[in-house]
């Protein structure tokens, strides 16, 4: 996943005058088109600059706040709190906020279209901000995983998640975007799937999900900075077996 392009290392070296006050006024050097230029650090670490679009799937409105289907929204809220990004803009039927983790710019988005039409907001958003497919991270609820188990996957299917199906459809039918699957467990017995998804969490489940979200934030940060590597595998393994420890 590391698309390490070697741009000239001197291209991004500003000499900022020390007496410049206005923080908001950033001088954009004209040569600074190279969004994906990597900046070799003294240690040789290259960090991507291509922006990431982190989308959380959910239903808008207070009625659906805290339901199982809206864990994606909750994840985005957590990330925005953690990274200090304010979600205050509405564009393309979504509530968005721009910020960065380290050197990597990220765009947090909460589509305000109902779940089945989330793609209508995600697709145009990704196209407008020219986010490549491999940098779109979708956080959504996954019934195949037990409650509170997260998984960072580089690609995958929709698993009968209507929101994800719609997003895939609007991303020109591509499945190769990374996702953060947040496990919510199977509906018990013969319970209706839709009813299960629109239920709120029980007390213990709520605690598990909160803990999971804490862990998830760190994982997202690591992913954005380093891409998919052995630490992601470790994270996935840790999540898979976190309830099997005594």
């Amino acid at each position, binding site marked *: 996943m590391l698309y390490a392009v070697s741009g000239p290392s001197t291209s991004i070296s500003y000499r900022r005058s020390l007496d*410049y006050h206005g923080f908001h006024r950033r001088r954009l050097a004209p040569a600074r088109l190279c969004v*994906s230029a990597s900046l070799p*650090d003294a240690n040789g670490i290259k960090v991507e600059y291509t922006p990431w679009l982190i989308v959380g799937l959910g239903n808008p409105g207070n009625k659906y706040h805290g339901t199982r289907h809206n864990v994606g929204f909750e994840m985005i809220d957590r990330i925005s709190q953690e990274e200090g990004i304010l979600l205050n803009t509405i564009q393309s039927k979504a509530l968005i906020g721009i910020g*960065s983790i380290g*050197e990597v710019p990220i765009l947090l988005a909460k589509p305000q279209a109902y779940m089945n039409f989330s793609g209508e907001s995600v697709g145009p958003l990704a196209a407008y901000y020219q986010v490549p497919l491999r940098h779109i991270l979708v956080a959504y609820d996954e019934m195949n995983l037990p409650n509170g188990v997260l998984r960072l996957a580089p690609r995958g299917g929709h698993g009968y998640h209507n929101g994800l199906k719609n997003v895939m459809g609007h991303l020109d039918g591509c499945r190769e975007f990374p996702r953060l699957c947040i496990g919510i467990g199977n509906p018990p017995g013969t319970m209706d799937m839709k009813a299960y998804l629109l239920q709120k969490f029980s007390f213990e489940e709520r605690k598990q999900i909160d803990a999971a979200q804490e862990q998830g934030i760190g994982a997202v940060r690591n992913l954005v900075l380093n891409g998919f590597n052995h630490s992601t595998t470790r994270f996935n393994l840790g999540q898979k077996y976190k309830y099997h420890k005594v």
Partner: protein
Amino acid sequence: MALKTLIPFPILAPSNPSHRPASEVRFSRWNNANAERFTLRERAQKEIEDNIRRERRFDSATRIADIDDAGTSKEAAAAGTFKSTGTPSSPSKPSIPGKSSKYSKNPKTSHPAFRQISRRTKLPDPNISPEAKRGISIGEDGVSYMVPGVPFELRYSYTETPKVKPIALREPPFLPFGPDTMPRPWTGRAPLPPSKKKLKEFDSFQLPPPGKKRVKPVQAPGPFLPGAGPRYVRSREEILGEPLTEEEIKELVQGCVKSKRQLNMGRDGLTHNMLDNIHAHWKRRRVCKIKCKGVCTVDMDNVRQQLEEKTGGKVIYGKGGVLFLFRGRNYNYRNRPRFPLMLWKPVTPVYPRLVQRAPEGLTLEEAGAMRKKGRKLIPICKLAKNGVYTDLVNNVREAFEECELVRINCQGLNASDYRKIGAKLKDLVPCVLISFEHEHILMWRGRDWKFLHPKPEDGCKEAKKSENNSEASIPPPFEGQKLSASCSSKISVKDASLDMLDTIASPVINEDVAMDKTEDLSSKGNDILSFEGNDKPFAATQLVKTAYNWDTVSDDTGGTNESEIILTKLDNTHHADDESAAVMPVELDTMLENGSIKNELMDAVTHDMDKLQDIPKASQDCGKMTGSSAPCTGRLLLLLKQAVDGGRAVVLDGDSCDADIVYGKAVAFSQDAPPGPVFRRPRKAAVQKCEKEEPRDLVVGKIVTAPEKGRSQSKSSRNQIAKDFKEGYLDVDYPGVGTRGTLGVDELAKLLA
């Protein structure tokens, strides 16, 4: 009577052999008494013979009566065969040719004295050494039987025998094969009668003629490469022949996948008699399909290896529990290895206990504690009875990366089955079995477990420290420290992070704005820098490095702790020497690899906290974050600004954090806003071409999506791509060379047209 005519003239009068007038009514033929006079009378055999005898009698009488010359008859007689007196008469030929009587003998048979019978005496096989005897050997690999003439040791099961020496046998041992005192295989019945004894030997290369009926179907010998044919060979490699090509394999497997003729392998694995069954399958078909279920699937590699070794065939395809065994190109059923069959189930040996009370160096209390913990543990998976457990070993290994104890649910299986599975896991995943209670397998990782993904050591230590020091207010106090100009001067050009540094460096205090940094991390980075600047001048690069490294090293801990950690680290170094300046970079370098420094940093933070008490808390409002002030987000912000100007986006003011309000506004806005661009999948060819031409530091997506931005019609985009294709091709290569294989048919047509 034929009428004689002067000229041969065909007589067209119908000849009526049956003397039946044509006009007469025809009755049915069968069992009709009235029809008797019209039925042909067939002469009985007796009548025919009587006729022959009568005629001969009359002929001989006529001949005697008509003797003309005595001389001619004598000469004729003399010309015939001469027999001297005393010659025994040969048996008279039967007067009716072909009829056998007591005076006639089968001309083929001859006198026993003159018969040529060769009785082949069975000489002892020179290959078998006289010392090799039939016997049982109980060794490290369990019980095995030695039979002379067989190249390997015979066992009841070749895959499931535990590789442990049994401690006892439940019964006195015996060889489960039939007696070797007779040449024929022992069937428990009387020998076949001689008429049925001789069975035609089956040669795989001599197939029955294709049209022959009532013969079981036989597949021709193995697929031959062009120019080769079946060969009578004996050695294993020769029988296998050349390695199969991929198409041949595909063909063979396809023909076999849906066949219902298969061999089943169960909890006993590859038994001895199964070898014979495999050869029986190979008599008729080239590929033998073996379906494995249950215990033997835990170690499919061993099963494959044993199959290939013992049968001499090759496993061409295997998926899940199903294996396809190919017999070999030059396989001949006639030359197959013959083993004696096992006619009875052999003695069951007693093996040492799988689970000890205190296994492998653990004390009894420790083991007991593990068992107690294990009772509450959630099992990682549930095994189905007679299922396929091919990935069980991998799953258990994965689970051991994370947890020490692993429990597997085996409810529904036979007790002997899950014990066998446990024994196999003990060998394959090297682990220690703790208990089998409640139909679960409980395993322990063991002391020396080799981790596949080495974990950072900081995990546990960080957690400890973060519990101790959980102060989120550290960043703001330190901010005031930024003001020290001394350090700021040192902070010179390095990175994009310089942006942050600059804000720090600015002598203007009370920059709430300064605090409105992108994220806490960067601000903490600033804190580090500022803090360092306070006590000791450091090279800017080092400072930046810390900030920069910190971002990349960030892990699962909360943001606040990290700053503490770094600050403590710095503090430690400060407390050291002036040389710490030099030491710092080294330490920082190692920080990446060894996150354990973090805990030291944590200590330092606490120290510093006490120190800095007179810090203006003016810029404490971390809450207010615009979040986009770093230059890296510049582009995004520009796009956002354009969107806002263009009416595509609207910035919400105030605290409209209520979801309903937001939703309402979003709906209202979207009705007026122009439709956004459509996301297009990046096309490979266009990408390649663009990569070639334009500098590589452009976003790939940008190139692809930009020209197609706003294009809602796919056709137009495809035309665009076709155009790109054309240009690309003309530049570099001619079509047909196929360097970029994604050329569609219609594009190709356009190019060729």
